[in-house]
C-alpha cells in the first residue's frame, strides 16, 4: 500500500500522541497511472512490418508509407487488399493478418485471380494474384470490430475534448484570446473571426485540425481552394471575399475530424422528405432503446484487502480471502455493531496498518514485514475487545479516499429507512421553504374533483 505523504512516528506511547504525529491528509490506493488524455489512435507503434517479409513501413511518414506498403504488397507478394480506404485502422489490420499468414497459407483466406500480366505491367499469361477482402468471414468480422473500436475511441476522445480545461492555445488571428476548452476556442474562431470549422459538438481531434489550419495559413495556402498566395494580407482578403473561410465539404482530407464519418456505414435508406426533419429533431423518440438505461456497462470497482494489497471485485470473495490468508473474519467481528461502528472499525484498521501498528496490542513496528510477522505469530489479526481504541470520532472519516470497502458494510433489505437515532447521533433535516401559492393550488385542485 502506498501513500503520498510521509509519516514521522515519534513515540510509541499513548494512542493520542501517535495519532497527532501521524499523517492527517487522506491517502490513496496505488492505481496504475493511466494517462489522463485518451489516445488519438488505436495503435501506438509507428512502423508496421509487412505481412509476409521483414520490410517495415512507417505509416506516419511524410512520403506516404501507406501507398508504398500497398505497392510493395502488389509488386512483390501479388496481394491486393479490397476496400483499403474503408479499413478503420490499417496497422491493426496488418498485424492481425501477419499473425495469420505466418502459420497458414495465403490461399486459405484470399480469393485468387488469374491475370495476364506481371506486376510491373509486362504481359504474361495466367499469373496468380490474391485478393484479401471481406468476403472472407474472418476479414469481415475483423473490419467490423476495428470500426467499433475506432468509434469507441473517437467517442471517448470527443467526450474528453468537450470538457477538458487544459487546452492552451493562442488564437490564430488575434493576440488577446486564450481559451481553456476546445469548444470555446472553436466558437471564438467563428464568433470573432468568422472562420467556420464546424460546430464543436461535431468535431473530434480538434488539436490536429487546428495545427493543420495553422500550417495552411502559415504557408499562405487558402483553406478552401488550396491556392497559394504571395503574402498574408492577400490571403486574408481572398478568403474573406470568396467566402473561403471554411472547410471544403468535398475535400476528404478533413473527413477524419468530423464525428459523423465514423458511423458504421450502411447503404443509405430512402427517407421521405416529410420525415427527414423529424428524424433529426430533438424530440424524436424511438421507444424501446431510447429510454433504456440498462445497456450502459462499466468496469467493476475493486476493493482492497484491509491487511495486504490483494484486491478483488466481489466483496464476498475478498472477505473469504481475509479469512484464508489472515484468519480475520470480518462478518464475525462486526456482528451486532451499528453501521457507524463498522465504519470506524474499517478506518481504524486501515489507519493502524498504514502507520505499522498492531491492531490488537498497539505495538509499533518499523516496516510492513515485521508487522505482518508479529500479527501472524501472535494471532493478532483480531480486534481488541475494548472499544475505546477504535470507537473514536476521528474514524468517521475515511482513511483512504474512494475506499470501496466502506460501501459494503451493511446487508440491505428492502426495509423502510429509519432516522438514525441508534447510537446517539442525531440528524436534523433542513427547513422547508415553500409557501402557499393560490394559483398553483387551484391548478392542482383541478385534477382532483369530488364526485
Amino acid at each position, binding site marked *: 500500500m502506498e501513500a503520498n505523504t510521509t509519516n514521522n512516528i515519534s513515540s510509541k506511547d499513548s494512542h493520542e500522541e501517535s495519532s497527532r504525529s501521524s499523517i492527517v491528509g487522506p491517502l490513496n490506493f496505488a492505481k496504475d497511472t493511466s494517462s489522463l488524455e485518451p489516445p488519438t489512435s488505436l495503435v501506438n507503434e509507428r512502423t508496421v512490418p509487412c505481412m509476409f517479409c521483414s520490410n517495415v513501413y512507417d505509416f506516419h511518414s511524410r512520403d506516404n508509407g501507406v501507398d508504398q506498403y500497398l505497392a510493395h504488397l502488389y509488386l512483390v507478394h501479388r496481394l491486393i487488399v479490397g476496400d483499403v480506404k474503408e479499413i478503420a485502422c490499417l496497422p491493426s489490420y496488418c498485424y492481425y493478418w501477419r499473425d495469420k499468414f505466418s502459420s497458414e497459407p495465403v490461399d486459405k483466406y484470399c480469393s485468387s485471380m488469374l491475370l495476364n500480366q506481371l506486376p510491373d505491367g509486362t504481359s504474361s499469361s495466367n499469373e496468380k494474384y490474391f485478393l484479401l477482402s471481406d468476403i472472407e468471414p474472418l476479414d469481415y468480422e475483423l473490419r467490423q470490430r476495428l470500426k467499433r473500436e475506432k468509434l469507441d475511441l473517437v467517442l471517448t476522445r470527443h467526450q474528453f475534448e468537450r470538457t477538458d480545461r487544459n487546452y492552451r492555445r493562442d488564437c490564430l488571428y488575434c493576440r488577446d484570446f486564450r481559451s481553456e476548452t476546445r469548444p470555446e476556442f472553436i466558437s471564438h474562431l467563428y464568433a470573432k473571426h468568422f472562420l467556420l470549422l*464546424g460546430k464543436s459538438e461535431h468535431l473530434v481531434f480538434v488539436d490536429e485540425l487546428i495545427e493543420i489550419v495553422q500550417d495552411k495559413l502559415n504557408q499562405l495556402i487558402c483553406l478552401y481552394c488550396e491556392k497559394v498566395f504571395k503574402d498574408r494580407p492577400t490571403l486574408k482578403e481572398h478568403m474573406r471575399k470568396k*467566402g473561403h473561410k471554411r472547410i471544403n465539404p468535398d475535400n476528404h482530407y478533413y473527413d477524419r475530424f468530423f464525428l459523423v464519418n465514423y458511423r458504421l456505414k450502411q447503404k443509405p435508406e430512402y427517407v421521405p422528405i416529410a420525415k427527414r426533419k423529424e428524424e*433529426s429533431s430533438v424530440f424524436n423518440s424511438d421507444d424501446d432503446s431510447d429510454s433504456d438505461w440498462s445497456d450502459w456497462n462499466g468496469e467493476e470497482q475493486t476493493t482492497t484487502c484491509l491487511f495486504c494489497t490483494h484486491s478483488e471485485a466481489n466483496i464476498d470473495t475478498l472477505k473469504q480471502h481475509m479469512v484464508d490468508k489472515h484468519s480475520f473474519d470480518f462478518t464475525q467481528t462486526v456482528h451486532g455493531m451499528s453501521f457507524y461502528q463498522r465504519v470506524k472499525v474499517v478506518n481504524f484498521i486501515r489507519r493502524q496498518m498504514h502507520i505499522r501498528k498492531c491492531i490488537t496490542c498497539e505495538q509499533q513496528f518499523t516496516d510492513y514485514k515485521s508487522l505482518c510477522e508479529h500479527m501472524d505469530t501472535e494471532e493478532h489479526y483480531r480486534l481488541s475487545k475494548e472499544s475505546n481504541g477504535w470507537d473514536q470520532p476521528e474514524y468517521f*472519516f475515511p482513511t483512504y479516499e474512494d475506499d470501496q470497502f466502506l460501501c459494503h458494510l451493511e446487508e440491505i433489505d428492502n426495509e423502510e429507512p429509519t432516522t438514525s437515532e441508534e447510537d446517539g447521533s442525531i440528524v436534523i433535516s433542513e427547513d422547508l421553504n415553500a409557501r402557499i401559492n393560490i394559483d398553483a393550488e387551484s391548478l392542482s385542485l383541478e385534477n382532483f374533483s369530488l364526485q
Partner: protein
Amino acid sequence: MADAAPARGGFRGGFGSRGGARGAKGRGRGRGRGRGRGGKEDSKEWVPVTKLGRLVKDGKIRTLEEIYLYSLPIKEFEIIDFFLNRQLKDEVLKIMPVQKQTRAGQRTRFKAFVAIGDSNGHIGLGVKCSKEVATAIRGAIILAKLSIVPVRRGYWGNKIGRPHTVPCKVSGKCGSVLVRLIPAPRGTGIVSAPVPKKLLQMAGIDDCYTTTRGSTTTLGNFAKATYAAIAKTYVFLTPDLWKDLPLNKTPYQEFADFLDKTSKSGQRIIEV
C-alpha cells in the same frame, strides 16, 4: 464594401450582416459541418403551452418549490430554465453507440446519458438516442431538466452552517441495483463509487456514506438507483414536518349543516 473592412482594423467582418443570407445558403449542405448558426434557434421567445407554463411566465409562481409542493407535473423544460437557468450545470456521463440491424445493414445511433444539477438541492437525469451526437446530447439535457427533483438535506449533530448530508437513511432501487444513502458527519466527503459520487455532488450533498448491492457494473441502473434514493429524501415524513399548515375546510365540514339536514333522524354521521 471592401474599404469598410480595413477601416475596422483587421480581419473582421465578411460574414456578419452582408454575408448572412449568402452564408446560410452556402453552408446548408447536409453533412453536419456547421449549419449556419444564425442564432435563430436560441433566442426564440418562449410561448407556454401548458397552464402551469402560463402561470410561471406571468410570475405567479415564485419558486420551483411551490410547484413541487402541489405535485404539479412539469411538461415544459422552459419552466425549469426560468427558475434555475444560471445555476444548472449539466454533465454528459456517457455517449455510447447503439446498433440496430436493419435490412440495409447496421444502423448506428448515439445514446447520451446526461445528469443535471445545481449543486444546491436539485438533480435530474436524462437519456436520449439519436443519429447525431449533438442532437442526442441536447435531447438528453431537455429530458434531464424535466426530471429534476428537489433534494432534502440535513445536518449531522448540530445545526450550524449549511445542511450538508442526507436527512435520514434512504434507499433507491433500479433493476438489480440497490443504493442506500446514509448520513455522515461534516468533512467525511462522499464515500461511494465514481458514478453516484458525481450525482451526489451535483445534488449538493457534501457528506454521505453509501452501501450498494446488485450488479453495479450496469452503470445505467446504478445512476438511476442513486437518483431514486436522492429523490426519496423529500418523500419521508420526519417529525419536524409535523407542523400544521393552514388548510381549507374539507367539503364535509363546509356542508355539514346540509348533510345534517338530509340524514335520517336519529342517525349520526361519522366524519371521516
